[in-house]
């Protein structure tokens, strides 16, 4: 392929040649009659220019057209010297006639070539474009690269776009980006080039450099090209996240607002990151700086935004008051959180009936948790938030009672009111021990009969099953277990010996007996470990019993370890069984009598 500079020089020379040809023809000479094209080009020769006679390739340009042809420089006719007798065909008139004929023939050929050349290049371009459309990227890239410089400007830009697209599809991202970026600089108005360039940069997670390209599209109202609007949403979200994590709160808030405006990821924008005051207030709360937090949340409240922002202001102020730890906080927190709930959940009840301790089977629980997990993320987030606020609000009620600013007058009202508030914190999306712990403890302290005590214990057992391990809780449960064992033993003994129901005195006076219900593996291991530690601490104080005690402790440790291994084996078998039939259990394919359908 000819170098463009060399080609331009050649073209210039040919044009000069044509000028010389024209200049060599006397301006006054009449053109020779010719059967060729009617057009004759006559150009005055520049002063002082000479060229030997001969044939030259020449190019004519103008009016948006370009013609390449062949012209001749004719020998100049002597003007002063006497001329020899003229041959019939060799006089100046004959030379001019010959030159004109050649020139006209050249122009004809030029016109032919002028139309044939671009047409063939256009056909070649269309063929290559078709290859790109057919996904034959590798084949198209080479041809487009070779051809692009020979194309007129409009097609040249198109060829470069196609080349960039093909390179992108081939995974040559560096080269594709290089070419598309150059094209974008030269023609920033091309929306397709801008979109493809931004898309490529997003794929490389180069969000900073994708942003200005998309911002330009946005300014020109061209986010309709491809999926530019969605792409811009991705970019703004990513940049907002970075700004937030780097502490550039103003930038983060602005960018998140833009994500909301663009629309596609509106529901992914955290509600509280739409406001600078909320972000700064939250950070102050996490930094244990309630004074600063109060300032930001009061600003937000006074700004009078929408319900959602007012809900955040109430929540932020509620948490601030809770953290300030001043007298009367419980009542104020309860009021603020109640306001927050009214704004967040205007149709939701402020309280719910307390369901009591859980009674469902494992299969029910698995099924329920699975259903909750299938809910949309936004719904789960909302349920979790409401549960958290209701839990804190219930605890604020208890706190107000403790601070002697009670919102409810009597202990029974406190129990009922707390349970009704914490019932809302029992959510499927996250199982918390806290509601059972608080309500169970309150009920345990207020229990007036055995039935209420049993309910309290069941609630505390639920809290334990959900992870509560506080010593006070464990002490209550262990005490209850010991009493139960004692009652069972007395009942069993009396029924066997005397054939009568034991009295209260029989039960309360009964001596401690060995365990009746089976201990858990964990309990046995903990006890064995504790005994071994105590034995070690006693050391030589054991005297004659030392050797026997040490042997028993070693045996206990060994048997506990064996028990743990066996329990794990049982669990493994259980897991296999569940894997085999778990789906049918959940689908309810079992009849009441346990037989499969």
């Amino acid at each position, binding site marked *: 392929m000819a170098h463009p500079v060399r080609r331009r020089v050649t073209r210039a020379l040919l044009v000069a040649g044509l000028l010389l040809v024209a200049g060599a023809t006397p301006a006054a000479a009449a053109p020779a009659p010719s059967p060729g094209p009617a057009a004759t080009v006559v150009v005055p020769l520049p002063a002082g220019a000479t060229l030997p006679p001969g044939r030259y390739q020449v190019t004519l340009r103008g009016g948006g057209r370009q013609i390449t042809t062949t012209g001749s420089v004719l020998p100049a006719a002597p003007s002063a010297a006497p001329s020899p007798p003229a041959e019939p065909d060799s006089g100046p008139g004959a030379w001019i006639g010959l030159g004109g004929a050649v020139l006209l023939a050249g122009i004809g050929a030029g016109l032919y070539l002028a139309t044939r050349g671009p047409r063939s290049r256009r056909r070649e371009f269309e063929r290559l474009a078709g290859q790109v*459309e057919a996904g034959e990227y590798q084949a198209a890239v080479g041809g487009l690269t070779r051809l692009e410089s020979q194309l007129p400007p*409009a097609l040249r830009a*198109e060829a470069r*776009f*196609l080349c960039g*697209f093909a390179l992108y*599809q081939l995974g040559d991202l560096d080269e594709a980006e290089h070419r598309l970026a150059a094209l974008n600089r030269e023609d920033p108005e091309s929306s*397709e080039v801008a*979109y493809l360039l931004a*898309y490529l940069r*997003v794929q490389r997670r180069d969000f900073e450099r994708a942003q200005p390209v998309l911002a330009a599209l946005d300014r020109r109202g061209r986010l309709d*090209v*491809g*999926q530019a609007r969605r792409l811009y*949403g*991705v970019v703004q*979200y990513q940049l907002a*996240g*970075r700004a*937030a*994590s780097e502490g550039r709160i103003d930038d983060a808030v602005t960018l998140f607002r833009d994500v909301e405006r663009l629309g596609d*990821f509106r529901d992914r924008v*955290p*509600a*509280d990151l739409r406001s600078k005051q*909320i*972000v700064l*207030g*939250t950070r102050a*709360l*996490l930094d244990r700086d309630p004074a600063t937090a109060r300032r930001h949340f009061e600003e937000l409240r006074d700004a009078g935004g929408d319900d959602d922002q007012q809900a*955040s202001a109430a929540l*932020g102020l509620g*948490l601030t008051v*809770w*953290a300030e730890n001043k007298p009367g906080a419980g009542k104020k927190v309860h009021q603020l959180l109640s306001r927050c709930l009214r704004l967040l959940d205007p149709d939701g009840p402020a309280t719910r009936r307390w369901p009591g301790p859980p009674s469902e089977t494992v299969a029910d629980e698995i099924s329920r948790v699975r259903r909750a997990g299938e809910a949309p993320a936004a719904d789960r987030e909302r349920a979790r*938030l409401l549960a*958290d*606020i209701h*839990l*804190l609000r219930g*605890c604020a009620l*208890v*706190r107000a*009672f*403790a601070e002697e600013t009670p919102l409810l*007058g*009597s202990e029974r009202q*406190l129990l009922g009111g707390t349970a009704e508030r914490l019932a809302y914190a029992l959510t499927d999306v996250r199982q918390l*021990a*806290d509601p059972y*712990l*608080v309500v169970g*403890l*309150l009920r345990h*302290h207020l229990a007036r009969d055995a039935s209420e005590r049993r309910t309290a214990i069941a609630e505390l057992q639920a809290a334990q099953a959900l992870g509560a*391990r*506080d010593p*006070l*809780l464990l002490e209550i449960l262990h005490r209850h277990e010991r009493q139960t064992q004692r009652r069972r033993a007395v009942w069993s003994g009396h029924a066997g010996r005397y054939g009568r129901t034991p009295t209260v005195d029989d039960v309360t006076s009964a001596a401690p007996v060995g365990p009746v219900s089976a201990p858990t593996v964990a309990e046995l291991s903990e006890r064995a470990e504790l005994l071994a530690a105590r034995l070690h601490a006693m050391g030589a104080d054991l005297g004659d019993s030392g050797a026997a005690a040490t042997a028993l402790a070693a045996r206990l440790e060994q048997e506990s370890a064996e028990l743990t291994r066996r329990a794990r084996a049982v669990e493994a078998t259980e897991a296999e069984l569940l894997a085999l039939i778990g789906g049918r259990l959940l689908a309810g394919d079992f009849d009441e009598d346990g037989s499969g359908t």
Partner: protein
Amino acid sequence: MTADREITRRHAGLLDRLKRPELDVDETDDEDLRHLELRRVVLEVAELDHAQEIALVRAAVARFGKAGQA
């Protein structure tokens, strides 16, 4: 005009081949971001754990009886 329409058609076809842009947020980054969200840190900010809940209940229980007299 015909050529322009052809180019427009071709561009639309090619750009349609690009996958739909998705928001791919790194889990850690997302967690950092969420940590700045007030609604995600209610219990953390309140430092409400089992020990505090039990302390609240015990403080309230200490007033039982007094409330009845009031």
